[in-house]
């Protein structure tokens, strides 16, 4: 199946290990990814500071219109922020004719038109519904046996519509973890926010939010965390020593992207395909499986 892979800004640098593993896993599962030519940033959630709602809609409508004109395949977003923002604009403009006309009047500056003929989907949705657990299981060559994985879904990943999983108690990430042969740890803060884009400017609050996520997951036995969002991954991984200083804890728990675990379980190269060498906290337990 062919899709547009909307990698977004984070996957260009800070989450390049996510991009590499998404591409590797996609290839192994027969997903064909194309790029939306000349895509722009989705604006993420923080753009409300500098921009009104119409500007944020235009930003996303431009990408959607480009995708429609370039083939109209489903747009797959590995980043939860890209997914939620772009998906919401797509829905709202499809439903609201008056707003759609206003946006199209603006898009005409670039000879573009939003028609509402594509879909925006999260990579988890595509992995679970288009590929399916059976096919994922069949691709596993090195099961992640005995590894206890805390699947941190994050908040934006399944919201606001809950199109492919519950907005309060999502399950499909755990089903994928189990398909890889690992044990999915159930914990209370699976969809509790990590602080997202205000983490950086309100560090103390961010530390508390992430501290609680790590506490509830490790209390239930998680040895490795996994996410499907670049900012969740960064906030959970990069600040652990600061969090320890601040909260008097002792976390040193690796934080992976779900596609990194998949690449390892599929028997692919742990560095070239899974890009585990780019994780800041070594993922030893998983690397042992790969060896």
């Amino acid at each position, binding site marked *: 199946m062919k899709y547009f892979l909307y990698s977004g800004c984070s996957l260009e640098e*800070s989450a390049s290990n996510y991009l590499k593993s998404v591409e590797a896993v996609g290839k192994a599962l027969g997903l064909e990814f194309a790029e939306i030519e000349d895509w722009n940033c989705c604006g993420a959630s923080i753009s409300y500071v500098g921009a009104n709602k*119409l500007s944020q809609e235009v930003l996303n409508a431009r990408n959607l219109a480009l995708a429609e004109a370039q083939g109209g395949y489903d747009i797959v977003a590995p980043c939860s922020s890209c997914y939620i923002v772009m998906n919401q604009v797509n829905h709202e403009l499809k439903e609201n004719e008056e707003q759609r006309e206003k946006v199209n009047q*603006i898009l005409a500056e*670039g000879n573009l038109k939003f028609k509402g003929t594509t879909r925006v989907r999260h990579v988890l949705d595509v992995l679970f519904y288009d590929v399916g657990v059976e096919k994922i299981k069949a691709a596993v060559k090195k099961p992640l046996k005995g590894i206890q994985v805390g699947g941190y879904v994050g*908040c934006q990943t399944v919201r*606001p519509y809950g199109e492919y999983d519950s907005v309060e108690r999502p399950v499909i990430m755990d089903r994928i973890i189990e398909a890889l042969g690992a044990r999915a740890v159930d914990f209370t803060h699976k969809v509790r926010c990590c602080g997202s884009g205000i983490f950086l*400017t309100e560090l103390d609050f961010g530390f508390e939010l992430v501290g609680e996520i790590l506490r509830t997951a490790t209390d239930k036995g998680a040895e490795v965390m996994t996410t499907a969002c670049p900012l969740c991954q960064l906030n959970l991984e990069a600040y652990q020593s600061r969090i320890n200083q601040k909260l008097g804890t002792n976390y040193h728990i690796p934080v992976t992207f779900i596609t990194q675990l998949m690449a390892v379980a599929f028997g692919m190269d742990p560095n070239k395909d899974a890009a585990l060498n780019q994780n800041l906290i070594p993922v030893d337990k998983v690397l042992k499986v790969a060896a």
Partner: protein
Amino acid sequence: MAEKASSKYDPTFAREVFKHVDAGEEIVKCMQCGVCAASCPLAEKMEFSPRKIFTMIRAGEREKVLGSKDIMLCTSCYTCIVRCPRKVPVMEVMHGLAHYALRQGFVPRRESAKFGREFWKCIYNTGRVNEAKAMQGYYLSDGLVAGAKKGLEMKDIALNMLTHGRMKFKSLVPIIPAAKIKDIASLRKMLDKAREMGKGGSPS
């Protein structure tokens, strides 16, 4: 009695919010149940929960609302949106209020305002956000010395990202500009027009 109670309500500010704040008209649906306040991951850090902010808007407390730190503490987790029984997009109202407050000269939260502005500047200037450049812009927005000091506080994390191939060296060097999308010219025209045509501007 009744007269005294109603005299506390002043619809002037509520009208301003309906007209100029993105999603502002949605607050009429609020029935003050407090599910938003109970759901917010940072509610305990707030003086005024979203529910209280809505009441204050109805009471006409303009300065108190637009100057409140709490309208800008949103992490955008959408929990209030998915739980509100009246389908008020609470998060969007908060974003709208914060945007409007900033354009009216209030600064609810200084650091988030600076970072948010740099983030948007990257989008407007290049079409995308180079994360390292956005961070530099944010750190340097207080001047070179303050910026260098702040940057140094984060140098361990930056270095860690750099050595793990999660930040490019050229992104770290301030004098090398970030790449632009091809059709940046028309994107800017679009964004200028959207700023003009959308809500958020000054009351006329």
